[in-house]
């Protein structure tokens, strides 16, 4: 009888531990269940140079979403963003890939537009700016003059 009690207590303790671990890994890994909250919009960039799934999406420096996935579509990079539901984007919003600091990580900055029309869920941001490729610019100055 005493033995069963101890066994049950140890079992409960173990289950509790596993649950705590699962909670922790979900919180830290930012894994979203059931497609997560918010809505998706896509944007096609000529190049994404260094942007990764999970990179942050910011408006005025405030994070409003994340990069859900990056894929290739017609030799362009199609970036799918997951935005918070209360963030509305006008259809002339501009999505630019920027670098934090001079050599920091890449993120997407959205500058909101002035149109009355909004981008619906699963819609597309038409106005994009690819990251400025410093190496390419430098090589242009080095090799440009023929």
């Amino acid at each position, binding site marked *: 009888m005493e033995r069963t009690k101890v066994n049950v207590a140890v079992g409960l303790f173990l289950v509790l531990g596993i649950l705590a671990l699962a909670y922790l890994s979900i919180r830290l890994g930012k894994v979203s269940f059931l497609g997560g909250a918010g809505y998706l919009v896509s944007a096609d960039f*000529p190049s994404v140079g260094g942007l990764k799934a999970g990179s942050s999406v910011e408006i005025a420096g405030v994070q409003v979403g994340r990069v859900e996935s990056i894929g290739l579509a017609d030799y362009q990079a199609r970036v799918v963003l997951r935005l918070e539901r209360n963030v509305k984007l*006008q259809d002339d919003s501009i999505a630019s890939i920027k670098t934090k600091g001079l050599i920091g990580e890449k993120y997407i900055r959205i500058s909101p537009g002035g149109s009355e029309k909004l981008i619906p869920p699963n819609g597309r941001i038409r*106005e994009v*700016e690819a990251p*400025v490729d410093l190496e390419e610019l430098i090589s242009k100055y080095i090799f440009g003059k023929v």
Partner: protein
Amino acid sequence: MIGLRRCALAAGALLMVVVFAHHAWAGSPSDQLRAQIERVVKAVEDPDLKKDGKVRERRTAVRRIADDIFDFNETAKRSLARHWLQRTPAERKEFVDLFANLLERSYISKIELYNGERFAYLGETVEGDQATVRTKIVTKQGTEIPIEYKMLRTPNDRWLVYDVVIEGVSLVANYRTQFNKIIQTSSYQELVKKMKTKQTEFLDEQRRTSDRS
């Protein structure tokens, strides 16, 4: 008899002009853009207008063509973005004029530096009423500068440019950030005041240089 023939000839010529003029507006976004840019090059290279004393005439000529290429209203609206919605129709009209002058000051004077650069048209994507035309400028030294024109279709089938993306940097995005910063830190009135002062300074400067020559 001769009078009748002359009449027919004149009618024919008139018809041709009408047909060609119409033709200039029809066609793909690239074709329309190419026709307009050729007009600019012609105006800049016009030996009559190239003389030093003709700066003002040359600028007016280029500005007139620029009005045919650009949809300044749309560019201004997109650059002002959120703040556009809060403006009254009168304020909007004033702002579009100021903005068109700002672009003229910054870019039309640069166009005069044109020196035999070549334009290459790389392709276009049309999506409903919006189109992107990809071009590049090749300088005499062989440096290539990629330029993308974002265009909108007007009801009469003309394509007008509302944004220019040079080397991946968008004109609208650039001004949107600047205008937003000025409006956030001071006010819209301050922005208009700033743009007006710049324009008067520019006009004074222009008057002085043309007086000198």
